[in-house]
């Protein structure tokens, strides 16, 4: 084999990693109460102090007292919970939902958690304190009545930040690795010393900087606790090898993260403390490690050159970090759990791409990150690869090998779109070139940005429904009166009505997000997170109050394919071919095209009916339930109407659809996407930044589709809407290149909060070297045409069906959901079906 630029020789997986992975999955994830108890104790003792000080003291109190544990075989230590994959809770954001779900959280379909009776009691006690003190309650008071009503009616959902912390940040890992928290503390002390007591903002600034100092000290002391634990465990273990490992852990945790890392090993441990503690301070997810291969490389290279470490040892340490990233967990409310299904924390770690000078930055660690993902083979980190014209071919082939395993990783991102898109939002060229991805698909510059990237889900199909009802929904005048469709005389008039509905709900979405934003600034500023993002220390201001250099709010729209296909069908069938009236289309939609109700939805409604009957003290037989189900499910339209609807569906089907490389319909889809992206970017957030749209659904296209009636593209009521910028499921019929060409015609630059394109491949398409070459050509070809992101599921329909039947055999089957991967068997049935129904592309 020719020695290329990179070391790509395979590295074997060490037996330790297999043991660590097995241990993660021994038990169901559980909820632990320690953090909530400690937080509450601290809050009770700091009443009346500035909020930033209370936050820092609470963080310190938690880190001083929370149980710590070193799990068997670990080399990298630091666990947020006693049990693997457990989660702490965060009552300062919200708590009512968890209290309401105490008895169901273990049994629910999406992301169940075990919770002991003792924990329930403890939390119930704690929760008494929090009534009236949470961010969600404050946000509710700030929100307009119209926005609340729109949320209630499922027009959009800002639930993520309403119930939880913000997260969605990449902090200055390189700085911690370089100077440690001693260095950051010094920076805060110097800033404090430079203040004048006479400054107008002295009070806030000085308290913020003191809060940073308290947080830095707390973290250092926390690491010391691990050092002491490791040392005492070393004394009692009889295993000589393990004793040495524990002694090493003790030595490492004495040094970092207080001081700069002197070795790759210390850098790994220091990284992990940062990564984990950010998720103890706040419940915000998508704490993204970012360009790990870049900031870790100097430590690796130095140790390797000096003979202090072997490639194999370095790989094992990285693998250990990958395992730890799966040890963290988060419990969400039942509805959000469906929207973020798969216990995912969206810790996006990205490799490759350009450096700040525009040169390729791929290095040996970039390859080793792929190997770590192969070795650990779990959904975290959300592993990503940056691609540009100068990306080494062998790197993409290696990434293709990982894709071929079916794990749904990596996701591929296009420098050629993202860099100019970020520049258009005010970043310098050098900053934009150094971007990484947050969470699913959201680009930003690390350590300078508070992006609020997952700010809400906006279902673009719902305003279209409201056009047909003149703004009414379930008996309420929800949207503006845009006129009865029966009286609309031109397509332009119809489209204007849609735009008016969109504009109205976009305004309300902004109202809701800004209310939540203010609430976080007032009730949950985060001094620890803030000390690692510029320019918080210099400005003396937390991230939540606008301390970052770049501030954005990025709510994501989805269902473009349905809206585009539906509007296009109306334009053609109603106004050009004049085959149908809008009145008839309206009736067809109300009657769900004469189709029976979606089975999952009917089952859900049947359950509700049955529950209310039982609650009323009546008995129900299996036969009764069946009758209820069949009655709910059956469509009541007349046979004559059903025949007409069948013809309508056939006519809709015959109209060209987005995803088939048809210039006209694709240009139409681009315009439709603008109905969301353009109005949104005119708004501003309370941190002084602007709104920017994303076009991706996480997994919300399934639960929110279940709240959406039939749409004029022929989609039936309550079925999933299209995910991201992908064509509607099963409608792209001309193969992967045609679908990619279509999707590339959308404007990916304006959607600078990220776009998401899902493609599903049959494994046969990636067989052999030639299969990989064609795969890479597809990615490159899509990116040449300025697509922003693409990801793949490579698993056959048969395999997924079998996994539904025999989940026990497929415990480790990882699939790509949206901007992340998850264990297939942990997903709800509806989401499983959605993944199975995505068009499966083959190489012919």
């Amino acid at each position, binding site marked *: 084999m020719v020695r290329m630029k990179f070391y790509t020789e395979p590295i074997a997986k060490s037996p330790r990693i297999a043991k660590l992975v097995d241990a993660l999955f021994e038990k169901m994830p559980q909820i632990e109460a320690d953090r909530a108890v400690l937080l509450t104790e601290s809050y009770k003792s700091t009443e009346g102090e500035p909020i930033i000080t209370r936050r820092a003291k609470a963080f310190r109190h938690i880190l001083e007292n929370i149980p710590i544990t070193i799990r068997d075989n670990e080399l990298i230590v630091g666990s947020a919970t006693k049990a693997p994959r457990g989660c702490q809770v965060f009552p300062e954001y919200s708590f009512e939902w968890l209290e309401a779900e105490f008895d169901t959280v273990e049994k629910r379909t999406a992301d169940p958690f075990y919770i002991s009776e003792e924990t329930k009691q403890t939390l119930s006690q704690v929760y008494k304190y929090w009534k009236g003190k949470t961010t969600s309650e404050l946000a509710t008071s700030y929100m307009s009545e119209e926005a609340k009503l729109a949320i209630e009616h499922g027009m959009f959902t800002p639930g993520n930040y309403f119930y939880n912390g913000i997260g969605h940040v990449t902090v200055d890992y390189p700085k911690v690795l370089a100077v440690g928290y001693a260095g950051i503390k010094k920076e805060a002390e110097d800033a404090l010393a430079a203040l004048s007591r006479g400054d107008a903002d002295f009070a806030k600034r000085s308290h913020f900087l003191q809060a940073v100092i308290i947080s830095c000290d707390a973290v250092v002391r926390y690491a010391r606790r691990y050092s002491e634990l490791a040392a005492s465990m070393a004394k009692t273990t009889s295993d000589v090898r393990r004793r040495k490992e524990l002694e090493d852990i003790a030595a490492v945790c004495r040094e970092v993260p207080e001081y700069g890392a002197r070795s790759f090993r210390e850098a790994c441990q220091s990284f992990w403390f940062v990564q984990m503690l950010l998720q103890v301070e706040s419940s915000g997810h998508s704490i993204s490690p970012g360009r790990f291969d870049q900031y870790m490389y100097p430590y690796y290279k130095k140790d390797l050159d000096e003979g202090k470490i072997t490639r194999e040892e370095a790989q094992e340490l990285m693998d250990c970090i990958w395992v730890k990233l799966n040890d963290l967990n988060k419990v969400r409310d039942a509805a959000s759990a469906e929207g973020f299904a798969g216990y995912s924390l969206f810790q996006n770690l990205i490799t490759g791409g350009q450096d700040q000078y525009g040169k390729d930055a791929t290095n040996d660690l970039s390859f080793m990150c792929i190997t770590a993902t192969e070795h650990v083979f779990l959904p975290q980190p959300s592993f990503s690869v940056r691609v540009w014209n100068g990306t080494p071919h062998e790197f993409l082939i290696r990434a293709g090998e990982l894709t071929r395993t079916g794990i749904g990783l990596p996701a591929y991102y296009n420098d050629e779109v993202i860099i100019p898109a970020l520049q258009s939002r005010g970043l310098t060229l050098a900053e934009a070139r150094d971007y990484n991805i947050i969470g699913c698909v959201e680009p930003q510059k690390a350590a300078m940005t508070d992006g609020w990237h997952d700010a809400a889900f906006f279902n673009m199909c719902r305003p279209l429904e409201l056009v047909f009802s003149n703004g009414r929904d379930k008996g309420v005048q929800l949207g503006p009166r845009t006129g009865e469709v029966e009286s609309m005389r031109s397509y332009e008039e119809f489209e204007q009505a849609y735009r008016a509905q969109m504009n109205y709900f976009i305004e309300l979405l902004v109202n809701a997000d800004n209310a939540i934003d203010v609430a976080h600034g007032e009730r949950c500023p985060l001094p620890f997170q803030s000390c690692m993002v510029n320019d918080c220390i210099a400005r003396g201001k937390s991230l939540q109050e606008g301390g970052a250099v770049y501030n954005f709010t990025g709510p994501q729209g989805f269902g473009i394919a349905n809206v585009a296909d539906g509007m296009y069908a109306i334009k053609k069938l109603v106004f050009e071919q004049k085959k149908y009236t809008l009145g008839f289309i309206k009736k067809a939609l109300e009657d769900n095209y004469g189709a029976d109700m979606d089975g999952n939805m009917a089952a859900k409604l049947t359950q509700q009916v049955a529950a209310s009957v039982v609650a009323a003290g009546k008995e129900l037989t299996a036969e009764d339930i069946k009758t209820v189900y069949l009655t709910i499910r059956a469509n009541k339209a007349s046979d004559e109407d059903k025949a007409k609807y069948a013809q309508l569906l056939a006519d809709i089907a015959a109209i060209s659809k987005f995803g088939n*490389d048809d210039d006209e319909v694709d240009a139409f889809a681009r315009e439709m996407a603008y109905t969301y992206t353009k109005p949104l970017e005119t708004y501003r957030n309370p941190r002084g930044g602007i709104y920017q749209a994303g076009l991706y659904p996480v997994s919300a296209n399934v639960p929110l589709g279940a709240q959406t009636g039939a749409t004029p593209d022929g989609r039936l009521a309550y079925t999933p809407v299209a995910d991201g910028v992908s064509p509607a499921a099963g409608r792209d019929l*001309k*193969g*992967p*290149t*045609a679908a990619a*060409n279509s999707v590339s015609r959308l404007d990916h630059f304006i959607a600078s909060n990220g776009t998401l394109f899902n493609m599903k491949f049959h494994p046969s*398409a990636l067989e052999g070297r*030639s*299969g990989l*070459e*064609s795969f*890479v*050509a*597809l990615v*490159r*070809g899509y990116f*040449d*045409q300025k697509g922003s992101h693409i990801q793949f599921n490579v698993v056959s329909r048969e395999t997924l069906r079998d996994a539904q039947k025999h989940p026990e055999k497929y415990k480790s089957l990882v699939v790509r959901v949206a901007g992340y991967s998850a264990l297939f068997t942990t997903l709800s049935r509806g989401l499983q079906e959605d993944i199975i129904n995505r068009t499966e*592309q083959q*190489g*012919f």
Partner: protein
Amino acid sequence: MEQSLLETKGRIFNIQRFSIHDGPGVRTIVFLKGCPLRCRWCCNPESQDWKPETMVTAGVSKTVGKDVTVEEVLREIERDRIYYRRSGHGGVTLSGGECLWQPDFSAALLRVCREVGISTAIETTGYADMDVIRKLLPYVDTVLMDIKHTNREKHKEFTTRDNELILENAKHIAKEAADLIIRTPVIPTFNATEEEIRSIAEFAKSLDGVEEMHLLPYHRIGSDKYAGLGRTYTMAHIQVPEKETMQKLLNVVQDVGLRAKIGG
């Protein structure tokens, strides 16, 4: 570019994009309608007849066969140019049916593709007058030609035509074409023995400049189409060759001194 070339008419039944098994790189395959052979295992039975016909697929009737101009087809081919380039050697492949059955259309299409810088290939039975073949050859980068059997009677029994013309043409094509790859469908009961494959490989090896041979294992993907066309599939009893069998046959071809692979 000459307008008359662009206006040349032909009859096709499908254009398939992102094809990765018929020629190098990512390709668009144009399936031409009409074929002189009637191979029993044919997976595209709707390709055989020149006349457009009706085929039922999953309960839906569709007309198979459409008259098009070179310009229309070129426009479709152009849509994936970016992927041809990114895959190194991708381009267009004429398949069928049999492209030699529509030589003017095929030659015109290949010629305009060449002129606009798209690499070309044909997948052919080689069953035509050599002078007809010569109309195409100057515009073809890669010829993928089937040699199904060296035994004349058996060839005729399974394909309805004997192989003399094919074997003779192969010798000329080998000399005159830029690149010739021999392909053999491996069909149990027809040619799936080591002796028969060896004989084909030896013939291929004897051709001027031929270095590569592909073994295409029999599959049943097209079997439902026979019913859809109201015809009987006579190969229903034939088993798909085992992986080990294919591996053995691959070794035979390699023994003869050719580069070989299973599949395209």
